[in-house]
């Protein structure tokens, strides 16, 4: 099967008056359609940088990135980005927040709008369509942010620690929600997280990075029954084994 994402020999160096920071060095990575990849690594090693490069909001110093064979040079149609904060616009109601992205790149057609409406209904936000973000709980807000991303029909979802601002219990619930949505919508996703158990609960493959400049230290393939939800995975015997494995890779 052809790779959805190809990262080839990508280097990235940040320049600032005080110093030069080599964030990525000779990074190579490929991801297949339908995979759910988690990236873990020491903080400041360059995880966000990788996502920014894939999204096209940052240009590699050298090397190339391809999605479906097309070289990424600027933000485009391919990726959907979710941040740590939901970044909902407080002055727009939920419907307007969800369909925000449809206003750009000539995506504002009936088909996309009805897809947005369908997602909202399907994932339990139908009655809040005219409400404002301040009236929603943290978990619901993050779900709105996910639907806002999904209704642009991205090939690849980029999730940058999207649950770390939530309290523990909400986080477990939203992990289940998001995982279900991504599975149902048959999306490919890259999740950046510093939470090892989150990575094990949600993904099909974990990529462990070295400290900065980031290169791939190891790749751990997870083998769970595909029917299990993230929460159910946490109760599996193998969960602890995986945890220790990732932990050892990190230290």
């Amino acid at each position, binding site marked *: 099967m052809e790779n959805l994402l190809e990262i080839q020999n990508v280097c990235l160096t940040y320049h600032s008056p005080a110093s030069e920071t080599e964030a990525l060095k000779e990074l190579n990575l490929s991801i297949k359609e339908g995979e759910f990849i988690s990236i873990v690594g020491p903080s400041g090693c360059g995880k966000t940088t990788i996502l920014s490069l894939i999204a096209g909001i940052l240009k590699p110093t050298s090397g190339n990135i391809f999605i479906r064979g097309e070289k990424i040079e600027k*933000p485009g149609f391919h990726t959907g980005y979710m941040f740590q904060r939901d970044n909902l*616009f407080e002055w727009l109601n939920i419907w307007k927040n969800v369909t925000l992205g449809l206003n750009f790149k000539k995506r504002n057609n009936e088909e996309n709008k009805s897809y947005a409406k369908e997602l909202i209904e399907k994932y339990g936000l139908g009655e809040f369509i005219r409400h404002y973000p301040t009236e929603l709980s943290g978990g619901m807000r993050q779900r709105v942010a996910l639907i806002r991303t999904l209704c642009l029909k991205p090939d690849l979802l980029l999730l940058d620690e999207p649950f770390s601002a939530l309290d523990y219990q909400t986080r477990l619930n939203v992990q289940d929600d998001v995982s279900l949505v991504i599975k149902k919508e048959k999306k490919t996703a890259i999740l950046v997280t510093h939470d090892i158990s989150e990575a094990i609960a949600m993904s099909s493959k974990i990529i462990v990075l070295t400290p900065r400049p980031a290169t791939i230290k190891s790749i751990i393939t997870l083998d769970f029954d595909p029917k299990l939800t993230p929460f159910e995975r946490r109760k599996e015997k193998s969960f602890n084994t995986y945890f220790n494995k990732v932990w050892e890779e990190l230290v």
Partner: protein
Amino acid sequence: MKKQKQNYSISHKKYLKSLLIKKVSIHISRILLLVLLLGAWELCASLNIIDPFITSSPSRIIKQISFLVQDGVLFHHSWVTLYETLLAFAISTIAGTLIALVLYIIPAVRKVLEPYLIILNSLPKIALGPLIIVWMGTGTKAIVMMGILICIIITTISMLNGYISVPKEKILLMKTMGASGFQILTRLVVPASFSDFISVLKINVGMSWVGVVMGEYLTSKAGLGYLIVYGGQVFKLDLVMSAIVVLCILAGLMYGLVALLEMYINKKRT
């Protein structure tokens, strides 16, 4: 958010009642303070403890105002000042907001102009009075210019700070969704700076009156500032006080209108 009728517990009812009592008593105290001050002023003046010729008195002010009203003079002078103020207010608010937008869009220009803005902001604008008169003549234009000068710099600086403080992540989000620079501006930066705009409006209500009255002190043939200067020169303190009272009322009304606008728009947005 919608308020729902609920069956509150007795303790909650008590709490609500105590809140109400506090609120009412603050209002009553405010009115009482005004009545007390005016009463003391009037009493002292009528008992000649203070010289009403110099300090005027509430009753003399009321008499003066009703005299001015009957004459049609008050309306004329108030209108002149109000007109100048509204003009200065509108021009400086709109121009300052737009200048700030340009500075925001072009960081290089912003960096170059930064020190100039800071100096202009700390410069006492009244110092430019003679220049304005030489350049713009002694008419309405010069007075409005004074009002604009006082408001426009602070408007520019406040709005620029508002635009700059829009969260970086929201801008990135817009970029990842494929928004153009113009769309980021109209859909994010401008609406996100709305509350800064309202506070600029509130500041400018006060500042535009300051600027215009100052302009009228410098050069004028009519207006409340003119009445104040004239009254001072011919020692008609009743006239000075009357003009000040009318100024207070007009400025208060204008502030109230802005506050109403804010409430109205906030309601529409939520």
